């Protein structure tokens, strides 16, 4: 569970509510038709902008914003060094057995390619293509949220215009001008909040997740290539430690002991 997302959303919403409610009651800020215009409009526009297959992918990818990545790079490097040791002791074919217990399909694929006797350049090529395709799929989630974030304020403005049209139509009743204006502005408020507190930050988080994935998968590719080339496990460890920040490097190997 990625608490940052949850804590951020709750505290952000909480602070906004507290600030708003310190002066007025909740009724002033709550207007259902406004919610409908902003959210309904944003979702509708997003649906229009995306092909239907992408929408299905998006729903599964969205969960990523709320879940943390299970693999830490340090654990991954320890695993790969362990495999290098197995390969040096029992030969590369022994990795086929070890690979069966793994969760990560990318790593399994890499080891399978090594066991099948593909040469390192070919493995790198296949794995890189796989990596790019996986990231493209994940990027769809980010695109959807970015699109939602783009359209929400716009639909907020549309709601405001609707409200103003209504207001100007009823100018003969001066008592209604103030409240109508308030309602008109509420849609812009909702649009801005939806975009800046929810949609765009989630889009950014998904983008970061993609970067993390690329990083982790690069480590896997380098590791598999090193194992395939018959590198000594200490050398594999050195090659992979380069990916880590200097203070993290000391953690490699310590947990294995």
């Amino acid at each position, binding site marked *: 569970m990625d608490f940052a997302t949850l804590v951020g959303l709750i505290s952000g919403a909480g602070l906004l509510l507290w600030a708003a409610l310190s002066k007025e009651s909740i009724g002033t800020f709550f207007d259902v038709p406004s919610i409908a215009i902003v959210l309904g409009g944003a979702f509708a526009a997003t649906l229009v902008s995306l092909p239907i297959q992408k929408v299905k992918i998006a729903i599964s990818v969205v969960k990523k914003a709320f879940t943390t990545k299970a693999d830490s790079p340090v654990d991954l490097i320890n695993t790969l060094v362990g495999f290098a040791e197995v*390969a*040096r*002791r*029992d*030969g*590369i*074919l022994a990795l086929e057995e070890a690979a069966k217990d793994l969760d990560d399909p990318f790593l399994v694929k890499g080891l399978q390619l090594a*066991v*099948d*006797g593909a*040469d*390192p*350049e070919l493995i790198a090529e296949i794995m890189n293509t796989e990596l790019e395709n996986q990231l493209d799929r994940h990027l769809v989630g980010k695109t959807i949220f970015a699109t939602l974030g783009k359209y929400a304020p716009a639909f907020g403005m549309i709601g405001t215009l609707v409200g103003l049209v209504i207001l100007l139509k009823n100018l003969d009743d001066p008592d209604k001008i103030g409240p109508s204006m308030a309602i008109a502005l509420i849609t812009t408020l909702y649009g801005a909040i939806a975009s800046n507190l929810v949609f765009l930050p989630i889009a950014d988080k998904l983008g970061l997740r993609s970067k993390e994935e690329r990083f982790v998968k690069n480590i896997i590719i380098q590791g598999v290539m090193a194992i*395939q*080339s*018959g590198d000594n496990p200490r050398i594999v460890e050195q090659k992979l430690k380069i990916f880590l920040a200097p203070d993290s490097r000391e953690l490699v190997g310590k947990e294995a002991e």
Partner: protein
Amino acid sequence: MIKVTRLNKKEFVLNAELIKFVEETPDTIITLTTQEKVVVRESVDEVVTRAIEYKRMTHNTL
């Protein structure tokens, strides 16, 4: 030209003139002069024997 077998049991012919190292890791890894590495099922001794055989055959045409 020596016949060797990849890990996936496919046989192929390797240009013995390109061999730089043959190492046991314990799988036999042949490093070529092109820096490419090839993993084969035959043992190091077997690879050496076949290479010598090949050389003997090509030189015996005198």
